[in-house]
């Protein structure tokens, strides 16, 4: 950590997030001579998909293969440029004029960038089931992160539940690592098979189909796969002890276990983008909010672009290409005469190839209604322990949107700032009011998008206007 670059007051380009999109964008902008700072709240580069890529203890390609290790190239490419990579840098505010508030080691800094690229990626879609707050219940992504960054895996019995490619990939990796994966409870919605078939041709030509099929077959050979799961609950006293579920038989079954790993796809991590007023729309198929961007990632706020899964879920390869395109756009805006830009057409060809099959996957793995609209007593807002029932009752009282709900119930007011409840709340309100999620809207997100202490805030340099422009209370 002692070799961290000092944060300067101004840069041509600031990039938030050092996953594939951020790494690729930074390499482009810095490679073209723009002063570039890359900020990531984690101690290392790689984001989620390439988590721990610089330091992973897992060197066995049978556990983490090329799809992971190839990420190292992105880090190497970046190291060849003059881009400044600041680790453990928590960005807590972004303003429309390009001012960024960031904290490193408990010290807050403000910096200004002519152009900002958000590459904050995606997060697991919230998967509220009864008992999901119990110790022993985690996300599939979380288990993968622990494997990649520390080479640690759950001991004891593991049940994995949900649907989507990541579920199968992680199951495979854990089995390869010698874990006891007791069962996979597959919640793939039977009703979605029909909707996805229209896009099957695209999937058949995609780069994912061969590996995907191979993975699923390998996993099915080594663990019990129960499909058609329509209900799930985590039960235990102080920690997870039992998973109950209903599958095709319609009977309530129980399975004792030590860990339950949940996965229902990933959705864009929107907090920073929304806090600066970037326009988002509700994607009905993916069931999440997606920013409005053009084909360079340019948003509705001038000077701010989004690249990678944060601009819409499309996977790691697409993230890299979209990062490069956002980098190209940044260079063209700041220095139209710059040379050394990568070949835009080639990148777009690669991007189109990487996007093949995504629509099929989006449709097939759209979580069933019952999981997006959890049962009454399920906790929806984990931070404040607000249940689905409480939300519906408050809507009936006249709180018509997530922000009124916030004021009334404290729903969404906890430290996670709605990250784990927001999409569920929007969908519940939409369902209760019989309107679209688009009409319901989302929490009004404001900075700081990550907590900051008063001491850190007090340590910021003050301007002269600061003490002057104050209202008499």
């Amino acid at each position, binding site marked *: 950590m002692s070799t961290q670059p000092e944060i300067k007051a101004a840069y041509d380009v600031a990039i938030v997030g050092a996953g594939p999109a951020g790494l690729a964008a930074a390499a482009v902008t810095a490679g073209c001579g723009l002063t570039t700072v890359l900020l990531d709240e984690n101690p290392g580069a790689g984001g989620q998909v390439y988590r721990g890529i610089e330091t992973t203890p897992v060197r066995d390609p049978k556990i983490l293969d090329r799809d992971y290790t190839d990420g190292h190239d992105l880090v190497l490419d970046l190291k060849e440029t003059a881009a400044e990579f600041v680790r453990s840098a928590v960005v807590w*505010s972004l*303003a*429309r004029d390009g*001012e960024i*508030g960031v904290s490193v080691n408990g010290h807050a800094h*403000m910096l200004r960038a002519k152009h900002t690229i958000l590459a904050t990626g995606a997060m697991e879609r919230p998967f509220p089931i009864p008992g999901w707050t119990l110790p022993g219940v985690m996300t599939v992504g979380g288990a993968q992160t622990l494997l990649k960054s520390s080479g640690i895996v759950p001991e004891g019995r593991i049940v994995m539940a949900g649907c989507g490619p990541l579920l199968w990939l992680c199951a495979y990796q854990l089995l390869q690592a010698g874990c006891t994966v007791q069962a996979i409870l597959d919640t793939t919605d039977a009703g979605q098979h029909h909707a996805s078939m229209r896009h099957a041709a695209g999937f058949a030509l995609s780069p994912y189909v061969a590996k995907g099929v191979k993975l699923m077959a390998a996993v099915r050979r080594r663990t019990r796969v129960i499909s058609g799961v329509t209900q799930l609950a985590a039960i235990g006293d102080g920690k997870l002890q039992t998973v109950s579920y209903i599958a095709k038989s319609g009977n309530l079954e129980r399975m004792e276990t030590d860990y339950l790993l949940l996965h229902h796809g990933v959705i864009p991590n929107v907090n920073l983008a929304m806090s600066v*007023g970037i326009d988002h729309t509700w994607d009905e198929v993916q069931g999440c909010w997606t920013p409005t961007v053009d084909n360079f990632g340019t948003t509705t706020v001038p000077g701010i672009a989004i690249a990678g899964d944060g601009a819409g879920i499309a996977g790691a390869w697409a993230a890299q290409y979209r990062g490069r395109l956002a980098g190209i756009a940044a260079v063209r805006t700041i220095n139209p005469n710059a040379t050394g830009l990568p070949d835009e057409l080639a990148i777009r060809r690669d991007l189109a190839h990487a996007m093949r099959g995504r629509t099929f996957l989006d449709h097939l793995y759209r979580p069933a209604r019952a999981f997006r609209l959890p049962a009454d007593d399920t906790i929806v807002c984990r931070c404040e322990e607000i249940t689905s029932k409480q939300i519906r009752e408050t809507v009936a*009282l*006249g*709180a*018509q*949107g997530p922000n*009124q709900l916030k*004021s*009334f119930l*404290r729903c969404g*007011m*906890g*430290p996670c*700032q709605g990250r784990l409840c927001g999409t569920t709340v929007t969908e519940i309100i939409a369902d209760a009011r019989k309107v679209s999620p688009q009409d319901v809207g989302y929490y*009004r997100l*404001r*900075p*700081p998008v990550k*907590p*900051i*202490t*008063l*001491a850190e*805030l*007090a*340590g*910021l*340099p*003050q*301007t002269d*206007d*600061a*003490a002057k*422009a*104050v*209202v*008499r*209370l």
Partner: protein
Amino acid sequence: MTKRPDVIVIGGGIQGCSTALHLSLRGVQVLLIEKDYIGRHASGVNAGGVRRLGRHLSEVPLSVASMEIWHSIQDLVDDDCGFESHGQIKVAETEAEHSLQRARVDQTRLLGFTHEELIGQDELRDLVPAIAPHCIGAIICRTDGAAMPYRTALAFKRKAESLGATFLEGGRVDDLKRVGQTWHVATSNGTHEAPVVVNCAGAWADRIAAKLGEPVPLEVIAPMLMITARMPAFVKPVIGAQGRTLSFKQYENGTVLIGGGYRGRPNRDTNWTDLDFSKLADNAKTATALFPIMKTAEIVRAWAGIEARMPDDIPVIGPSTTAEGVFHAFGFSAHGFQLGPAVGRVMAELITTGATNIPIEGLGMQRFQNVRAA
């Protein structure tokens, strides 16, 4: 709606909702028009301070009357509005500040008001053990407190509705014209008519006033607030400071709300506010100077509502000077929440009887009669 309204209220903040309620209590048919949703702006996102302490003398009678209503708010709106009364305290950090406070308390006593009291260091330390040791005394209003702003606005609305008032949300008033004895109020959702109109349009009230031929120099401001994660309970009264700007309150759930009127940048056409972190840095300095334990407190959210400020920092309350049948209640300059319950009653009295018992002469529209809008 089936019955033509007697009064159209423009604006669904606390002033509008309170006016609607008090008129409804008198059997008046009210239609309230709100361009966004009830409590969307200043009324829904302010610090919730319920105080008489430190008010401009023109506001004091209104504030004192309103405080009585607050102490039985449950009876009025069937909701306690989250009202807690542990006092409001304004600390003095120097002898000079304490002298100013002494003069202020004397002044209020001379005018017949007894709600403000001077206290010394010992009692201050007793009441607020966590206050920085250098604070030497304070003014206290022992039965002041705080409430939950959005919940309050909603409670007023629901009670008014139960008494027959109609609330139309999501439609903005575009124009108003008098035709004979009737006001025609054109909105994005159609035109409504009534003999009386009340302008409670907050940060947009000057636009309404301009259409009536009485422009006012209203400034649109965005006072910023911050709230912390939960902390162990350490302070019950709401705290302010004589020599610095601060509003500081810890809720029952342990979170601490910090305000100070530091201004962000509003855009009243897009409903957007930009925060200014360099000013929040000053706010943070003040909070930690007065409460050292706050250094490690975490801010989990900051925000700024859209509010109206008048150049003299007091509201405009009373009949229009140019338009018959129109009344104003706006421009509360970041301290209107506590006044809301009484303002509604005053407006209802003015409208139905032509007069009110509470002195409001200093707050009238007349004072801007020769002033052009900024």
